[in-house]
Structure formats: structure tokens, C-alpha cells
């Protein structure tokens, strides 16, 4: 029972961080229908800024700067590249983000050099909380709290703010939204900025001893790959689904590692995803689009 509780907590904690990553991914996809392969790079770039500024201005300011940097980078990618490649298909744009990803990743990893990989979770990392017999990393608890706050804020904005209305309108029907005077470029750009900021927040939890066991490095980028199945399980067009998907991924990994096989955990995540897709081809909450003749 104690082991089970520990596994449950492990999984939920990881899930909170996957949810943050997946949410950013979904927001970008929802607004632009671009699969952002550069999501890991956005996180890495934001994290690099935090690592550089941390010794100079302290953690809080550095974290704020890092989040801003990730948002700005996302914005730059959208304005400078994607917005100019409007004739390209969605698949081509996805590949374009792969090119961007290679560029950003290479440069950040080069800059990181051979120093020890920087850890970014100063206020909460390696300060475990013990509840009876089970332990939970403080990073995960903080991440969970931050995700809850952010996701609530996001849903409120999505539902009530003009930005949210515009974004929903655009995601429903791009042409109609344009007709109604909703400026597509502003919605698109803001979606990228929000997605980038979320990646910048996620990296503050990714590059911790508690979550990934490694500092900011090339490997951090690989961890971001876990956002894929999380976003897909929930349905690429559903922010709520992304959050749920994050927890499904976290729990599946933890449960499989304990009760099936440690090594099988990552495969299990993808198999669960495959199962979800076979039953619901657009994910749990994804919008079903059917062709007409």
C-alpha cells in the first residue's frame, strides 16, 4: 500500500510537469495547426537564460527573464519564419520548426560548453516533503500548484477574455474569424508567445534533480518529447485534454515502471496513446473533423 501510494504520487508529480509542457504545445497547435517540434528548444533557450542570469540577479528575476525569453523566442519564430511561410502546408511548417529546433538546440548546447549542467529549481529542488511513509519532491508539488493556477488562469482567459474568444473563433474557423474582423496574426502570435512562456515555465521544473535528475542539457530537450503523447492523448485541440494527457502519461509511466517493468514504462505510454487513438481517433477531447462530399 505504501509502495502504491508512493508510485501514485511519483506519477502525479511527473504528470503535472508533462501537463505544463503539453498545454503549451496544444495552445500553439490550436491557434495555428502547426505541430511545434521546437517546443523542447524553447524550453532549453528559456532555461539557458535563467542559468546565465541566476548568479547575477537571483533566481526570481532570472526565472522571469527566462520565461520572457522563451516567449519572445516563440514570438520571433512565429513572426519571422512561420508568418512568412503562409503558403507552406502544415506539414512543411512542422518540418520548419524541426529546422529551428536544430538551430536553437545546437547553439544552446554549444554555449553550455563543458561546465556542469545548471540546475534551475533553486527554491524547491531536493527539498522533499514527507507525508507519513511516502515522499514527494517539492519540485513536483510546486509544479502541480503552478499548473493548477496557470491552467485555471488560462481557461478563464480562454473563456472570458477577448483574446480567448478570438482564439476560439480562429480555431473553429479561420476564414470566418477573419471575416468577423478578428486579426488572425495577432491571435497566432499571442498563442505562440503563450506557448513559449509555458515552455519557459516548464523548464524551471524540468531541469531539476527532483524531476529529471539532470541539469539543463541536451537531455532536457529529449524529455520535452513526452509532451507529444500527452497532447495527443488529450486531443491536440483541447487544452483541458492536454492537462489530463499529462497526468495519464505520468501515471502510466510510474505504474508500469513499478508493476510491469522499469524498462517498459516509456513504451507503455505510447501503447496507451495508441489504444486511446484506436478508440477515439482524435484523442479524448479532440475535435472530430469529417469530410463532406
Amino acid at each position, binding site marked *: 500500500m505504501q509502495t502504491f501510494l508512493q508510485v501514485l504520487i511519483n506519477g502525479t508529480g511527473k504528470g503535472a510537469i508533462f501537463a505544463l509542457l503539453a498545454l503549451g504545445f496544444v495552445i500553439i497547435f490550436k491557434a495555428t495547426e502547426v505541430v511545434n517540434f521546437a517546443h523542447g528548444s524553447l524550453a532549453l533557450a528559456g532555461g539557458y537564460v535563467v542559468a546565465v542570469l541566476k548568479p547575477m540577479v537571483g533566481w526570481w528575476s532570472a526565472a522571469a527573464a527566462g520565461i520572457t525569453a522563451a516567449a519572445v523566442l516563440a514570438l520571433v519564430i512565429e513572426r519571422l519564419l512561420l508568418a512568412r511561410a503562409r503558403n507552406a502546408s502544415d*506539414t512543411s511548417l512542422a518540418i*520548419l520548426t524541426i529546422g529551428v529546433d536544430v*538551430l536553437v538546440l*545546437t*547553439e544552446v548546447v554549444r554555449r553550455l560548453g563543458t561546465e556542469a549542467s545548471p540546475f534551475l529549481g533553486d527554491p524547491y529542488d531536493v527539498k522533499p516533503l514527507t507525508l507519513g511513509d511516502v515522499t514527494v519532491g517539492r519540485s513536483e508539488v510546486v509544479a502541480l500548484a503552478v499548473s493548477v493556477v496557470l491552467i485555471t488562469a488560462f481557461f478563464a482567459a480562454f473563456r472570458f477574455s477577448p483574446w480567448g474568444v478570438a482564439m476560439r473563433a480562429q480555431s473553429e474557423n479561420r476564414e470566418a474569424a477573419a471575416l468577423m474582423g478578428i486579426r488572425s496574426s495577432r491571435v497566432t502570435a499571442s498563442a505562440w508567445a503563450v506557448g513559449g512562456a509555458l515552455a519557459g515555465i516548464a523548464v524551471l521544473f524540468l531541469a531539476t534533480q527532483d524531476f529529471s535528475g539532470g541539469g539543463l542539457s541536451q537531455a532536457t530537450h529529449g524529455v520535452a518529447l513526452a509532451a507529444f503523447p500527452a497532447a495527443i492523448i488529450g486531443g491536440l485541440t483541447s487544452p483541458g485534454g492536454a492537462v489530463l494527457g499529462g497526468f495519464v502519461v505520468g501515471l502510466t509511466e510510474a505504474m508500469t515502471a513499478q508493476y510491469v517493468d522499469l524498462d517498459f514504462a516509456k513504451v507503455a505510454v505510447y501503447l496507451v496513446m495508441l489504444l486511446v487513438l484506436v478508440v477515439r481517433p482524435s484523442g479524448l477531447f479532440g475535435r472530430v473533423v469529417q469530410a463532406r462530399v
Partner: protein
Amino acid sequence: MSDSNRAAGDMVPGDGRWWRIGRVAGAALLIVVLLALPLYLPGEWLKVGTWMMTGAVGALGLTLLTGQAGQLSLAHGFFLLVGAVSYAVLSGPAGDPTYIGFGLPPVVGLLGAVLISGLAGAAFAPVSGRLRGIYLGVASLALVFLGFWLGRALPAVAGSTSSGRLPQPFSIFGLSVDVSRQLSSLSVFGVPLGRDERTWYLYLLLTAIAYLLAQGAVSGRPGRAWRAVRDNETAATVLGVSVVRVKAGVFAISSAYAGLAGVMTAWWTGIMKPDESEVAGSYGVTVSIAFLAMIVVGGLGSLPGAVLGAALVFGLPVALPLLTQSASADIGSGTAFSPIVITNFAYGALIVLIILFEPSGMAGLGRRLLGPARART
């Protein structure tokens, strides 16, 4: 072609006499160059060439699936693995205490590997048939993870993660890959045809077969069915195309191509060894994405585009280190702009630039450059 067909006039690409002659002459020139290259290029550059051809075979398969039939797949790495492992097992020596092998002739092993990969692709059809777009793409990624796990869970089949198993040497018409011997009994004009030269010709032959098969299919009935399914499934059905069968078929064909590319990968690297990580390695996510990049950069659905894309995506990262690392230069520090760093920059920037300025890829660029030539009759 029929009279009415020819009567179609100026709009017909490739109907101009000069254009046709130019095309044939271009093809002939290409053949000359490709056949003569091994007599000039040093071994490491032949290795680069054979690696490009490996990519080309895989990319041809993927462009049929994704470009022609509209099914996004990130599972190419998995089918490469299936092909490579199948070859290693089918042609591997029987009675080996460590590794399972059937001791079949390598040619049978090659054909078997291609067939098994195709069947593996067909087996995924019930899932792939239900899914579309990015959902299909990420769903197919599951196969890569499954392969990564299976490869390590079955060391007697896929080779141990510790040292791997050796793929059986292969030889046909005197063209061969053989890691163990430096063949030099045969020579042309004083150039001994060693391992690298013969591998070049073998890979050239395989790539040419793969290309011509794809070309025939694309311009014929299968190609029309693929494009119909890509553009409108309901219309395709009404016009007599079995969408389910066509989708399963093209997935199988694409996987068979990937399987062949997998066998070529195993020959090229000289080892059958499961990847150490799901991201890096010869059969992982990065490779699957690289294949997708090839066909997009080359121009979705275009066969010459797939080959050019492969030359760029597989060739550039391998070729640049050869060019940029001079014999005397030291490695430098950890933050240096090392040749690999520069290579990665060039690779990333090229992808971005091509999609930015030529969304239909190198094939589109080619059409634009050759357009005026075509119009002249």
C-alpha cells in the same frame, strides 16, 4: 501516347522534342557520373554516397506514403529496424549459440527482409487506416518506441546492446558489401574495386530499382489511387478505389522500402545493434524525423525530390565533417564552433530556408528552373 493526347499542345510538359532529348541526355549524363565516381572518389566519400543512397531508398518509400497517399508517418525508423533485424536473422548463420539465424542465402535474406517489413507495415494498417494527419504521425511514433524496447528485449534476434551482431556479407553479380575483406581481385582501368567501390555499385543498383519501381507505380494506376485517397477519400471510393486496401497497401510498400533501407543501414554500419537511446541512433525518433525532413525539403510526393532531400539530410551531416576537419586542426574547446556544430547549423538553416522560400521543396525549385525549358517546344 495517343493522337488526342499529343494534340494537347503547349501545355504538355515533356512533350517538347528538345525537352525530351534534354531529359534523356541529362539522365545519361547522370548515369555516366554515377558510374564513374567510384574511380575518382576516395573511400570515405564513397561511404558518404552510399549513405545518401540508403537515405534515398527510405525517403522514396516515405514520399509514396506521405507525399502521394497523404499518410503522415514517423514510424520509418521502426521499419528500418525490422528490415535490418530480419536480414540479420534470415541470413545469419544457423546454429550460432548466441544469435538466432536461419542460415539462408543472403539474397533470400534481403528479399525476405523487404517482405517482412512490408508485412509489418500491413499489420499496422488497421490502426493507420483509422487515423489522420498528425494523429497518425504521433501514433506511428509508438512503433519506434516499441521497436526500441523490442530490440533490447530480444538480444538473440536484434543483437546484444553490448556488442551487436554482424550482418552477413552480401554479394550479387560481383557487387558486394563485406566488412571483413578488402576485395581487390577485380580492377577496372587500374582502379581496384575494393569494398567501398563495390558497395557503391550495389547501392546504386538497389537505389535505381527502388526509384524505377516507384516511378512506374506513381505514374500508373497505383499512383492515381494514392493521390485520390489523399485528396478525397469519399470521391475515391465512389470511383471504385478501395480506400482501406489502398491505405494498407501503400503503408506496406513504404515499409518495404524502409526495410530495404534498414538492410542497407546494417550493411553500411557493418553491425546490427539496437539503439542505446530512443532519440539518437540508427532506428530512432531522430531518424524518423530526418526521413520526414527529406521528403518535405525535397518536395512532398516528388521522387527526384526525395532523392535530393536524402542527399541533403543524410549527406550533409556526414560530408561536412570530412570537409571541415583538416588534418592538423585540434578539436578545440567545448564552446567552439566545431565542425559538427557548423554542420548542424547548416542542416537546420537549410531546412528553414527551403521551406521559407520554396514551400514545395527542391522539386518545386527544379520545376521553376526547368519550367522555361519545358515550355519551349
